[in-house]
């Protein structure tokens, strides 16, 4: 009986197509990726079945966390500088060029305007360590609405239209704070809001 010889093939295989594909994907992800901006506050948004996406740009994000703190964020860098000067002028606070630059890179913040220069001149690590008290939004010291109004004005000047207002509330945030924010905006005739939520699969409505 002849011995059955296993057919010896070289164990090397041509990896070229795989490498091609891998690099194609790497390139794709490298070009499309946009790192999620670091948020000043952790907000766990509730979910809803709404499928409307947040617009890509010109968004003012108002975050409300579970400790009733209000944070303000704006995504366009250019009107943000304008905004900082406007609000600074209103409260008699001036900012250096370096502080303004840091501000334009900040995704959101929650400190009163008086503490803002000090907050901005710290470095990233220190800034993260600071517990931000939130922007004052009560009737005596309502800086929050000034930020929004001036941001709208700056956005209108820059792009010819006001920015979208997105409210990002934590699931455990209390209703009075959110309602207060809405009320304040309504006082300024802003009646259209977008509540940021997570996507949840749509249930079959029993019709």
């Amino acid at each position, binding site marked *: 009986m002849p011995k059955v010889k296993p057919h010896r093939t070289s164990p090397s295989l041509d990896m070229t197509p795989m490498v091609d594909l*891998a690099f194609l994907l790497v390139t794709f*992800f490298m070009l499309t990726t946009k790192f999620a901006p670091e948020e000043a506050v952790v907000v766990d948004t509730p979910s809803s079945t709404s499928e409307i*996406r*947040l617009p890509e740009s010109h968004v003012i994000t108002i975050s409300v966390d579970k400790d009733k703190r209000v944070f303000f964020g704006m995504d366009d860098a250019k009107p943000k500088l304008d905004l900082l000067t406007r609000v600074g002028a209103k409260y008699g606070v001036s900012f250096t060029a370096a502080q303004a630059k840091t501000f334009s890179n900040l995704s959101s913040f929650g400190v009163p305007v008086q503490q803002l220069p000090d907050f901005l001149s710290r470095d990233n690590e220190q800034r993260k360590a600071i517990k931000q008290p939130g922007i004052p939004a009560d009737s005596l010291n309502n800086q929050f609405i000034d930020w929004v109004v001036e941001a709208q004005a700056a956005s209108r000047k820059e792009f010819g239209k006001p920015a979208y207002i997105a409210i990002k509330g934590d699931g455990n945030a209390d*209703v009075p704070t959110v*309602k207060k924010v809405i009320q304040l905006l309504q006082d300024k005739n802003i009646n*259209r*809001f*977008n*509540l940021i939520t997570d996507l949840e699969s749509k249930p079959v409505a029993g019709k």
Partner: protein
Amino acid sequence: MAEIQQQADSGKGGKKRAKKMSTKIDMTPMVDLAFLLLTFFMLTTTFSKPTVMQLNMPVKPKDPKEQSEIKASNAFTVLLGENNKIFYYDGLLADNVKPELVASSYGADGIRKTLLQRRQANPEVVVLIKPVDKSNYKNMVDILDEMNITDQKKYALVDISKADEDLIKTSGL
């Protein structure tokens, strides 16, 4: 390693030949790197923008008299209580009328069913949403979401009144 270098020549024959180099390169480290990067970018990329729920509030009337009154027969009030509780009653609360408060739930068989039933009975129904101060934002989003799911167009987010709070308290639910 994925590739094993093969013996190039068996060494027989006296003629010295220029050694033929294999044209194959070991691509394994490169592939390793490529996949490492691939994984990294795939995991860090934020593809989807968050979704938003649109909420349009009514424009504040300049004159309080312009505010529209709703008929008690068309009103359906949902109260959002603390600890994720939810109650509803038909009609409006008045000094002499005490509507019956019913406890419900956020699930599909709870408030959604009731909303659909009410609208079937009366297409004109207006839902008044009143969150108590101790309810959380998630409840508010949930109930607004129910409005979208049930396709209820007429609803309003209303401040809670003292009478409503008392109604919850006295009902003992």
